[in-house]
């Protein structure tokens, strides 16, 4: 790890996301499977990045690492100055809570809970009091135009509405990054357009957004596209 720093001399140390020589290796019996091989890149605050690649390319593994759901086998990962690659499970949970806002393909809302409660969840784990939580969650739902649906449960909402609840939840704790995994994968094309428009608005408001997708139409909305293939960065280009 130490001898390969020269190859990433262009990386700025104060980047929001900083990955240096990241390896992720799975042990499959006697064989080693390298899901990521020596991946290095950085993301500045306020960027809108798409990570694209076919299935099996390693993009899901990369997303899990960016989202602090997993730790790299080798390499250095800094997010907002925190050295994530060396963290314990509980420290990672704290980073997920404070720094990452997840948006999943299948929304991942708690089906028994109301929209309001779903949005409140990250604040509960952040230790925010109930009164403040309710207010902030209501405001977040207002911001995604669901102010009149706060007490609905996920099964009483349309797909697009569910994804907007998930986006409100992702943004509630003012994370450093909004990390979306195939955010339109479960939506029809009309709703997809709406959600992508919402992402653009959020980007315009100053949020840093990373979208992981295999759809080119979704990726082309971003300002920068990283293409992953066989566990390596094949292409990294700024398009806007």
């Amino acid at each position: 790890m130490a001898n390969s720093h020269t190859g990433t001399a262009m990386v700025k140390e104060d980047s929001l996301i900083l990955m240096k020589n990241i390896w992720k290796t799975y042990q499959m019996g006697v064989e080693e499977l390298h899901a990521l091989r020596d991946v290095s890149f950085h993301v500045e605050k306020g960027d809108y990045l798409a990570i694209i690649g076919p299935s099996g390319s390693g993009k899901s593994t990369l997303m899990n690492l960016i989202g602090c759901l997993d730790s790299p086998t080798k390499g250095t990962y800094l997010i907002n100055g925190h050295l994530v690659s060396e963290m314990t499970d509980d420290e990672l949970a704290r980073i997920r809570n404070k720094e990452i806002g997840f948006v999943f393909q299948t929304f991942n809302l708690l089906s028994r809970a109301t929209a309001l409660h779903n949005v409140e969840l990250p604040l509960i784990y952040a230790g925010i009091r109930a009164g403040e939580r309710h207010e902030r969650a209501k405001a977040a739902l207002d911001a995604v135009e669901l102010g009149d649906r706060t007490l609905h449960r996920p099964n009483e909402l349309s797909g697009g509405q569910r994804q907007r609840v998930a986006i409100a939840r992702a943004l509630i704790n003012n994370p450093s990054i909004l990390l979306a995994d195939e955010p339109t994968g479960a939506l029809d094309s009309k709703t997809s357009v709406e959600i992508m428009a919402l992402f653009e608005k959020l980007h315009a408001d100053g949020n840093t957004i990373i979208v992981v997708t295999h759809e080119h139409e979704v990726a082309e909305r971003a300002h920068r596209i990283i293409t992953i293939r066989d566990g390596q960065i094949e292409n990294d280009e700024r398009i806007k």
Partner: protein
Amino acid sequence: MNFSETLKLAISSITAHKLRSFLTLLGMIIGMTAFMLILSLLLGFNGYVNEKVAGIGSNAFTVQRFNFDDFKDSDTIAAAQRRNKELSFDELDFIKRGAQMIEHIGARSGGVGRSIRVGNNSIQNVRISGVEPVIATIDKIEIEQGRFFSDTENNTAARVAFVGADIAKNLFPQGGALGSELKISGIPYRIIGIQVAKGTVFGQPQDNFIQLPIKTFGANFGGLRWNRAPNFAVTAKEGVKMEDAVDEVRTLLRIKRKLGPDEKDNFGIITPDAISGMIGSMTAVFSIVLLLVPGIALVVGAIVIMNIMLVAVTERTKEIGIRKSLGARQADILRQFLFESGLLSAIGGFIGLFIAYTAGYIITLYVFPTSIPWYAAVLAIGVSGGVGILAGLFPAWKAAALDPIEALRAD
């Protein structure tokens, strides 16, 4: 995640599956009901024994020929019969003169059983004994009608009798027992007092007795010897501990009987504590066995809870993944499931306690005194909650240890 949030979450999880929660709790409820019911019966029984048989709360103790230990087996009985002499009035006087710590001391003879007949009415198995007048004070005898006999009546061996309520009621159904005569073995006695009815203890009637002045009894029933030999009832002075009074009486009697320092007592002193201790040691094994059975039911209840919590963890793998992705730490997930199983089980314990309490109340009304002390109730809730937490430990640990990526992938 704080206490009230975790509690709210546990409540909502339990109420989300009401039927399942109830069925899960059934084992706990049955176990706790049985446990508390048996406990309350045992405690009620002990209270009953202490009050009625051992006379706990009374500060009287008894000096008698034999000790409890003498009845261990036939050899010890035979040895005690050779060694231990009957108590005498000389010894009573010696103790009375020498003792500083005792309030009252009085002699009471062993009794004889007789059938008594007055006109067409008769009563079987009447216990007839002789007592000194002071026994009325020592026993705190309650008088319904008339009076107890006096020292003069005792000293002159007057033919007077103090009788239990059944004697008055059965032999004189039309009333008028007080002042009437009744004949025992052909000798007439005048009834001068009737005791307040006491009912029964373990089915033994407490009201079919006749007490005569001890001198009268000795003169008319063949002397105060053998099974009619006297024993002494003693009360300690106010402010004196019973064991100090017992020690004093023992020392005096040993002096009077000229026992050397190495010799064993050749008499027995029986305190209420000793009686309840003896009964307690007899019932202890019995109690443990009785409590073991519902104890097993509680264990089974705990296993049911563990099982359903394992199901809950599997069912909610996705939820656990979501919560972890949003920043829940392992401790948060662990606490969530421990709270749920603890609360679930405590609810079962509470319901069981409530049923046991209700059943105990009904039993007390109609059958037998029972009691559930407050500490047992608190313990029941505590134990059931604790058992639930224990049962939830493994499932909760499984939940907390889930890999967030794997968990999110679950359906």
